[in-house]
């Protein structure tokens, strides 16, 4: 009986471990500082997590398909700079679709290299991280981009507006999460993404066009990045070339925290959202506790490893690795 109970606990932990950890953090931080759970703070954390979150949604597709995307940070800088630049040149109504088209073109290039040419995604996106940064600097001439008329543009609605008292970035994040959650869990495309990531050869032997599926995952990722760039640009109406630098690792950390396996084939949008929120609340909570910024680094380290460790430990039914 005792083993059975232990097993049940194990399986609950395995399925909902990350959610439980999340609740524990919230309680701990709330005890430390009651302000933590104030509606203002929650809204503020979710809003500032929205950009990271939107990017993480796309990367979830890429990771489930068994690949990586380290280029999302510099791609986000690119889309932010481009839309800000075009805003004054061709007007926001045109700037937004043009920026999306340009960003998606970059995603298509990566998707082509990884999907159709079957190149290693870690190295391809590492190369693109550098190349897109160069592209952005060339595009902007290294200058900050700012919108001339900051008060008069409706463009600010995506980053600064509210609807029904809720900031628009949150609405975009939630809507996109719901939409992509449905795509991943309910559509044929989503099913194929899992199949390709779980066993690419078997997927091919089942008539799934693997290259096309991977390609579309990078298109998804680029679309999410473009959306994040839009929110970012609209939020600050001006930006530096380095605005997205380093975000690729935070995004990846969020997706991994959510329980997606780097080997592909597992993960969900819901879990990624939890991963994003955990990162956001940890950062915010530590800041509220008045801890130095570097404590965040160390805590994030410990939490990432613990979360992934407990997740795989529950799956294998053993805490310690069987490696001799």
């Amino acid at each position: 009986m005792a083993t059975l109970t232990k097993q049940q606990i194990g399986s609950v932990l395995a399925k909902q471990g990350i959610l439980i950890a999340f609740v524990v953090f919230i309680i701990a931080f709330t005890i430390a500082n009651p302000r933590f759970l104030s509606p203002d703070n929650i809204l503020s954390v979710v809003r500032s997590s929205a950009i990271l979150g939107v990017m993480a949604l796309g990367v979830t597709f890429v990771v489930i398909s068994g690949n990586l995307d380290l280029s999302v940070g510099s791609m986000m800088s690119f889309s932010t700079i481009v839309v800000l630049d075009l805003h004054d040149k061709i007007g926001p109504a045109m700037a937004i679709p043009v920026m999306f088209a340009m960003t998606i073109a970059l995603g298509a290039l990566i998707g082509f290299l990884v999907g159709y040419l079957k190149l290693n995604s870690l190295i391809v996106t590492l190369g693109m991280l550098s190349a897109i940064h160069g592209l952005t600097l060339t595009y902007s001439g290294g200058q900050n981009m700012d919108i001339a008329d900051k008060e008069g543009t409706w463009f600010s609605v995506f980053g600064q507006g509210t609807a029904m008292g809720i900031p628009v970035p949150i609405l975009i994040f939630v809507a996109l999460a719901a939409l992509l959650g449905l795509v991943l869990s309910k559509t044929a495309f989503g099913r194929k993404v899992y199949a390709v990531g779980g066993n690419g050869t078997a997927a091919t032997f089942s008539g799934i066009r693997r290259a096309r599926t991977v390609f579309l995952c990078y298109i998804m990722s680029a679309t999410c990045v473009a959306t994040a760039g839009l929110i970012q640009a609209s939020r600050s109406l001006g930006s530096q070339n380095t605005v997205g630098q380093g975000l690729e690792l935070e995004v990846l950390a969020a997706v991994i925290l959510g329980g997606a396996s780097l080997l592909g084939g597992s993960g969900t949008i819901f879990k990624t959202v939890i991963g994003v929120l955990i990162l956001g609340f940890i950062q915010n909570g530590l800041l509220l506790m008045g801890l130095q910024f570097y404590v965040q680094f160390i805590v994030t380290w410990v939490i990432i490893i613990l979360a992934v460790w407990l997740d795989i430990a529950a799956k294998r039914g053993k805490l310690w690795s069987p490696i001799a």
Partner: protein
Amino acid sequence: MSDPVLRLEGIVKTFPGVRALDGVSFSVMPGEVHALMGENGAGKSTLMKVLGGIHQPNEGHIFMGDEKAVMAGPLEAKAKGIVFIHQELSLAEELSVAENIYLGELPRKSFGRVDWSTLEENTNTILKKLNVGFDATTRVGDLSIANQQMVEIARALTVDAKAVIFDEPTASLTDAEKSVLFDVIADLKADGVGIIYISHRMEEIFKITDRISVLRDGQYQGTVNTRDSNEESVTQMMIGRKLDLSRNASHHELGDVALEVRGLSCGKLYSDISFEVRRGEVVGFYGLVGAGRTEIAETLFGLRDPSGGQILLNGEEVRISSPADAIARGISLVPEDRKGQGLVLGMNCRDNMTLPQVDDLKAGPFVAEGAEIAIFDQYRDRLDIRTPGWKQQVGNLSGGNQQKIVIGKWLSMHPNVLIVDEPTRGIDVGSKSEIHKLLRELAAQGYAVMVISSEMPEVLHVSDRTVAMYSGQIMRTFTSDEVTEDNLIQAISGIKSGQAA
């Protein structure tokens, strides 16, 4: 008689909720070849892991000679003289033959250097015994699968082994290589080594073993002398019922030609292949590994581009450039590598089964899950797939049930042509006969079926006609009246009989 080299006494191994081994006791005498048989899931591999020190038994003991032996890990098992020849190749492709044979115990010089000259010398001595055509410095990745298997076997000869355990060693060997292997076993036997031989192949078991021990559902069923028993009685011990292994031929009318291949070639893999498959007919493809059978199937399924020739479906010439293409034209392939090519092990049963038609099962923008479950239920019942439910991960099923999922996946596509590559490789006897029966039934229902197999009894049992292949070419096509074991073996060994079909 002398003392046993290895004795198991009441071994019990439990996992949460499962009694994987329940009181297994038998002994292996020096110079004995001892067969261990049982269906998949009967506990053979768990028992091997206990012997190899990967699992510790909950109850019972292992004795080596007179001494009680505790295997704390693979190294200790090896040190005590137990050597494993694994079924799944366990080699490092980038390393040389010598390094693979002595993996884990490379000879050392000062500063931790590898003693290359000793290593090569020792390796070449062993390779000589095995009479193989490669040397110690060859890179393993450059060897054929069969030669890689020989490297695996060579490992057994490196240590002063007391007991050698062969786990399905002949799965990818040619007949010539098999006979070398049997010579090696005979040598070991003569040296007084105890051998445990695990195989599903009855003819081998009866050819080389002295005694047979049988497991069923983790329980020890007993040990019999090989010469006192026969296939039927052993099978009965394993599954508790009789097997039908008679020849088979269609008694129904054959339909139109569903698939015709004319002069198909693919580089060096095969050339000038011509055959046809009618509705209601099972055509068997028999030959050695590497004869080009699987490659033909892969070409028909759009996984390889042919370099010449024609493929006709229902009399119409087609070009098939991808599996999606093949599926759209009604061709289905049950691939030879179930885990690698057939299934996404981390996915559930239902999703695996409906994977090729997920685009067609639509409810608005979404996949129609109700329709999927209906399909799954239908084929679960029809194929008697034993699983707790569609949500079960395929990776948790037994080999036979996994194979049935793959077959169900392709049957549910209602194909014009069903290609089945090694349909029963590595699955237990019970599931095997069920699958054979199913293939016959499918033909009776009017399917055109191609069966590729390396097992002669299987080919003889299920085929209406048998295509014998050798080195990328069709040697001869036999009707079920013509075919005998002898002329089939001659044909696949490259001996022309002059009676082309």
